[in-house]
């Protein structure tokens, strides 16, 4: 621990003990507690390191005039100290323990009403309950009763924390009992009497807690619904965490009550009850006694007569990913039933689903609740597609047909659903919610086996949706996604007729001109994604890109995307730039000659980078050049790319958006990697003569020199230096990392004579000042690294090489790389930007300063800034 902190801490404790009200900034107490927690986590005893904390605890505990936040802090701190057995002993000896954790003490002082204090009590107690002594204290002080009482606290936060605490207590009892059980005969008498006492304590606590749980579950009042939900959540948590024998005991205690709740069929409790049953089912092996009962409860939950409940329960079962062929098959049938009823497409065999449920669900679907039922059914289709064929009541192809039929119903087309439920048509017609869920389900179904045959039908419907005037932008987006997924289903797109293609072209062209920017955005995104879909085979048997096959390729796509570069909405501009990158990637990879259109695109992109007021578009431009550079088979042979890169780098440096700058650095990194590719490791046993070694080194140096000069010419080095002093930390950090990489590559091989041969011109005087500042740090004798040179000399060197114009500075790259202590710079940049202000010392000083300001005679009450952080 920092010496200065140790020195200042007693004063802080005095301040905390003395302040009758909370500190202006509550978060300082949380931060202080975090710091103490960090100290204890390192294995240091908190009381040994900071003995003054004990006085603080005593003062606050015996003098209840402190504010609730300080009292809460004290309780948590007591918990932290008492979490170790030594600390616990000290607290016990000085009578602090019993007092701070005695609810009656706080009740008598009238402070228990404050939820802040109750939270402190719960959290402190939870922290302290780590060992058997703490448990003994917990039992002897009778703290289980107030804890149980807090389970239904009026404050939701307190109640929730109390739930967590109860789970913690039970788990502790479980772990301590198991230790006790494992006790060996060799242990001495005292030890064995202790473990016996611990076991008794554990047993008592467990019995009380379980009785309480059971009592809460069987409450008759419907008003206690939220309480029962809370208890069911707790029960789920316990069932997941506890082991036998506590698991058995827990189940034995509550199973009757749970069964009663299951048979009562309270809709609001369906999901928490299902969670309990599922948790129990997953924890029990087949040889467990209650397994069969739990299985029966599960069957009961899954065969309820309320359609909404049974659908929820079935969905919960599928989500839990537990495997039981009977239940899984039943749940799949239940979840497919609404689709079966609405569309009239038979997804289930006649006898598979109880006729009663079908009748009830049909009635329910004629009301507004049909939305939730249909949507639950559709959102679970991805899970259904993953099921084994024997768990499914029908081939997945038929489910696709049903979803298509539902999508048609949503457009008012009933031709394919003549046997469907007419009553539900009026609700689903035009419903964007059902359309979106159906589209998602359709996307998921594209991965199903043997569905290729439906591709033309799916394609036709999706194109119709894209053409529909009333399609919501979000539905359009989902339609495009589904189309991309389905295009990937088959490598043979010959089944898509010319008419369908023409419809798609028409739809895409129209949506590119849509009034709603979201629709335009989805359209250009679609064009980009389509370009990335793997190649397919046409009717003539030739391999073609789906983009070519369906839309006619770049001749259709590129003009549309070029048009979108002018869009008023920046998102659309950004998406069109990305889509252009995706569309042109193949031609870049193939090293195809640039077309006039591509040249125009580059010009336009440079305009966007220099003039666009929105960051999204500018970021996309830099990413376009990154994509171009990285996918280009030979970047150096593409003159336009070579010419454009320096412009992009210089504009990236001048940009105000930190993400643009970061992307510019990614481009710079690509250029660095290209200039200095990782050399193949030399053969470990290779023998090299002195002469050849010398000549090899000279060749290498000249090669490096050439590469470095090329980087300087392209503006990479000046960009890196400028970014190093950027005000955005991630940018400066990345630049520093790249410069270090450059230094490691270049400097060891460069002799001093070469240094001056690589000059680099940097723009602006401000940079020089920054460099001077960085070099000024090197004057500190404590600074690590042997390569530093006195700042004065280098400052002069920089100034001496200043160009006559005065608006740029010429520096020697290697010299600057060596003189800047990049390692030190990296360590500073790696820390968070506020590491100085967030240091423990700063925190302690802040608390003292705040107390001084509060006690200042001139300070008026209510003038302080109150900060609440949650």
């Amino acid at each position, binding site marked *: 621990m920092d010496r200065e902190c140790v020195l200042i801490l007693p004063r802080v404790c005095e301040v905390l003990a003395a302040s009758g009200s909370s500190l202006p900034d509550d978060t300082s107490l949380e931060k202080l507690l975090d710091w103490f927690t960090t100290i204890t986590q390192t294995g240091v005893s908190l009381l040994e390191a900071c003995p003054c904390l004990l006085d603080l605890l005593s003062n606050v505990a015996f003098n209840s005039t402190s504010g609730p936040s300080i009292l809460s802090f004290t309780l948590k701190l007591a918990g932290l100290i008492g979490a170790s057995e030594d600390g616990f002993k000290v607290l016990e000896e000085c009578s602090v323990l019993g007092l701070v954790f005695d609810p009656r003490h706080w009740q008598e002082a009238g402070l228990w009403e404050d939820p802040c204090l109750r939270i402190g009590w719960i959290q402190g107690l939870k922290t302290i309950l780590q060992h058997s002594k703490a448990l003994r204290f917990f039992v002897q002080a009778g703290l289980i009763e107030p804890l149980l009482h807090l389970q239904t606290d009026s404050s939701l936060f307190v109640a929730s924390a109390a739930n967590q605490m109860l789970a913690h207590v039970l788990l502790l009892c479980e772990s301590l009992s198991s230790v006790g059980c494992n006790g060996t005969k060799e242990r001495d008498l005292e030890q064995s009497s202790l473990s016996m006492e611990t076991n008794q304590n554990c047993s008592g606590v467990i019995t009380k807690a379980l009785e309480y749980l059971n009592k809460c579950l069987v409450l008759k009042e419907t008003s206690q619904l939220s309480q029962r939900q809370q208890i069911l959540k707790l029960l789920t948590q316990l069932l997941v965490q506890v082991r036998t024998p506590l698991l058995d005991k827990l189940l034995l205690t509550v199973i009757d009550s749970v069964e009663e709740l299951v048979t009562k069929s309270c809709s609001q409790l369906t999901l928490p009850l299902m969670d309990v049953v599922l948790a129990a089912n997953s924890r029990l092996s087949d040889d467990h006694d209650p397994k069969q009962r739990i299985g029966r409860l599960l069957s009961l939950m899954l065969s309820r007569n309320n359609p909404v409940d049974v659908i929820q329960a079935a969905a919960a079962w599928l989500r839990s990913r537990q495997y039981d062929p009977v239940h899984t098959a039943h749940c799949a049938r239940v979840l497919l039933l609404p689709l079966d009823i609405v569309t009239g497409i038979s997804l289930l065999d006649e006898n598979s689903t109880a006729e009663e449920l079908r009748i009830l669900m049909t009635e329910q679907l004629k009301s507004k609740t049909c939305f939730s039922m249909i949507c639950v059914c559709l959102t679970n289709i991805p899970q259904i597609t993953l099921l084994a064929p024997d768990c499914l009541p029908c081939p997945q192809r038929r489910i696709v047909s049903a979803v298509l039929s539902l999508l048609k119903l949503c457009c008012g087309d009933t031709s394919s659903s003549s046997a469907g439920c007419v009553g539900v*048509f*009026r609700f689903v017609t035009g419903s964007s919610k059902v359309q979106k869920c159906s589209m998602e389900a359709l996307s998921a179904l594209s991965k199903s086996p043997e569905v290729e045959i439906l591709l033309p039908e799916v394609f036709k419907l999706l194109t119709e949706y894209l053409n*529909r*005037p009333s399609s919501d932008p979000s539905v359009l987006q989902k339609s495009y996604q589904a189309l991309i997924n389905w295009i990937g289903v088959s490598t043979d797109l010959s089944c898509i007729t010319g008419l369908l293609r023409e419809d798609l072209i028409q739809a895409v062209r*129209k949506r*590119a001109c*849509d*009034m709603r920017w979201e629709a335009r955005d989805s359209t250009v995104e679609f064009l980009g994604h389509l370009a990335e879909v793997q190649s397919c085979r046409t009717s003539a048997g030739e391999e073609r890109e789906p983009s070519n096959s369906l839309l006619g390729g770049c001749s259709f796509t590129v003009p549309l995307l070029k*048009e979108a570069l002018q869009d008023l*909405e920046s998102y659309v501009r950004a998406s069109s730039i990305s889509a252009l990158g995706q569309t042109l990637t193949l031609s870049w990879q193939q090293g195809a000659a640039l077309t006039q259109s591509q040249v125009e695109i580059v010009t336009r992109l440079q305009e966007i980078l220099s003039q666009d007021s929105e960051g999204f578009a500018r970021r996309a431009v830099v990413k376009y050049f990154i994509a171009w550079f990285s996918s280009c088979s030979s970047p150096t042979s593409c003159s336009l790319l070579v010419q454009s890169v320096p412009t992009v780098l210089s504009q990236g440096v001048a940009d105000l958006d930190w993400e643009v700058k970061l992307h510019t650095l990614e481009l710079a990194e690509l250029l660095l990697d290209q200039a200095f590719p990782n050399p193949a490791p030399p053969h470990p046993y290779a023998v090299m003569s002195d002469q050849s070694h010398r000549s090899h080194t000279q060749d290498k140096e000249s090669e490096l020199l050439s590469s470095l000069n090329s980087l300087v010419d392209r503006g990479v080095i000046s960009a890196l230096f400028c970014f190093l002093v950027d005000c955005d930390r991630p940018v400066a950090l990345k630049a520093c990392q790249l410069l270090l990489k450059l230094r490691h590559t270049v400097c060891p091989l460069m002799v001093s004579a070469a240094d001056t041969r690589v000059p680099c011109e940097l723009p602006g005087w401000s940079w020089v000042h920054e460099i001077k500042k960085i070099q000024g740090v090197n004057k500190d004798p404590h600074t690590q690294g042997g390569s530093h040179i006195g700042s004065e000399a280098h400052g002069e060197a920089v100034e001496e090489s200043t160009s006559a114009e005065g608006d740029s500075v010429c520096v020697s790259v290697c010299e600057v790389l060596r003189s800047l202590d990049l390692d030190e710079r990296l360590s500073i940049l790696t820390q968070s930007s506020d590491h100085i202000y967030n240091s423990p010392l700063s925190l302690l000083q802040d608390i003292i300063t705040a107390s001084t300001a509060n006690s200042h005679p001139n300070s008026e009450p209510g003038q302080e800034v109150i900060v609440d952080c949650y």
Partner: protein
Amino acid sequence: ELFGAVQISPLSSGYSLGSSNWIIQSHHEKVSYVSGSSLLTTHPQPMDQSSLKNSDVLILTGLTQMPTANPDGMLGEFCSNLAMTIRAGGNVLVPCYSSGVIYDLLECLYQFIESASLGTTPFYFISPVANSSLEFSQIFAEWLCHNKQTKVYLPEPPFPHAELIQTNKLKHYPSIHGDFSSEFRQPCVVFTGHPSLRFGDVVHFMELWGKSNLNTVIFTEPDFSYLDALAPYQPLAMKCVYCPIDTRLNFHQVSKLLKEVQPLNVVCPEQYTQPPVTQSHRSDLMLELQPPPMPYRRCSVLSLPFRRRYERVYILPELANSLVPSEVKAGVSVATVSAVLHSKDNKHTLQSVPKPPPVAPSKKRKRVIEEPPVTLSPKPLLSGAVPLEAFLATLQKQGITEVKVEETAEGHILHLQAEDTLIQLEEDGTHIVCDNNEPLRTTLRDLVLRFLQKL
């Protein structure tokens, strides 16, 4: 006011400038006539719904022709197709009326032009009344929506087409002859009539552009079948797009409106009471009301389900002054009125009975026939009820003791056995049946009158 019988008032229907709903009301009855109305936010003042409340009958007409076509979606479709055609180098023809929806189309295009990079494309509006339509729309601020009204006070033109005209993006001409011919530039967008394509300048453009598949005709008026309209021009190479923009009330909106205004009876065309023939399952495309609406067909005559029961009559002040009201129960006073009822233009007024002119002193002997008719003062009106027990006691005092009382549905019948006389006491009348014994009848009458009030 129509012949004094009913008052007829127009209400804003929210559909377009110049459209209105009507209230037809007398003093005690109210009939609302709802024609093409809209709840969407377009250029006119919002629909006045509150004035439709408390109607005895609401006649509902003018619902949307395109219940399944969302106007916003159609507007989007219109713009997309327009931009797509212009980008491809084609022309766009929009057959439309000279007022109404065109204002909204122009406003929508005003916003769309920039985003679709159509800033340099000329828009032409050709109609004999194009200029007046565009200019008049700017001066009826009181009938425009709130935002447009606010603009007027800035002062700024309420419709943005003023700016389009100012910046030469929108040009208007009375016909294709004259200036238009010299200034016409392609590709362009032309708004012209008539939407039926049977007459007007649109016919020329159909012939001019019909042969090129680069051009597009976009139908926005829902009142005409676009297929019928195009029939004479076939074969046609130009693209045809049907984007009916109908902002009138749909069935969902009208159901909410009727729940709000709660008319006692709704009268509507028969078509509204059943789903469209082609979409028989669409129960959402019909009116479902309780009580069911009264449907009507073409030329059918309906008797509306209400009866005129009251009429308002005015009383002149001097006659009112002469009245002597007497209170029959707390807060209710009655008085008899003797007056002359004067009816003219369905207005009724009670006037004082003219007094006979004073007889001028004359030396001539009056002739009998010249004497004015003697106006008899009306008999007092009686009110109140005869209490049976008290009446029997009074009869006994008068020596009539043998009374047999029989209870009937209307009241009581008293049989004075000795006198062989019947007295029927009913809620709204008393009858004394007494043969040839006038003194007894008079006595009994006086006894009855003792219990009644005279007005």
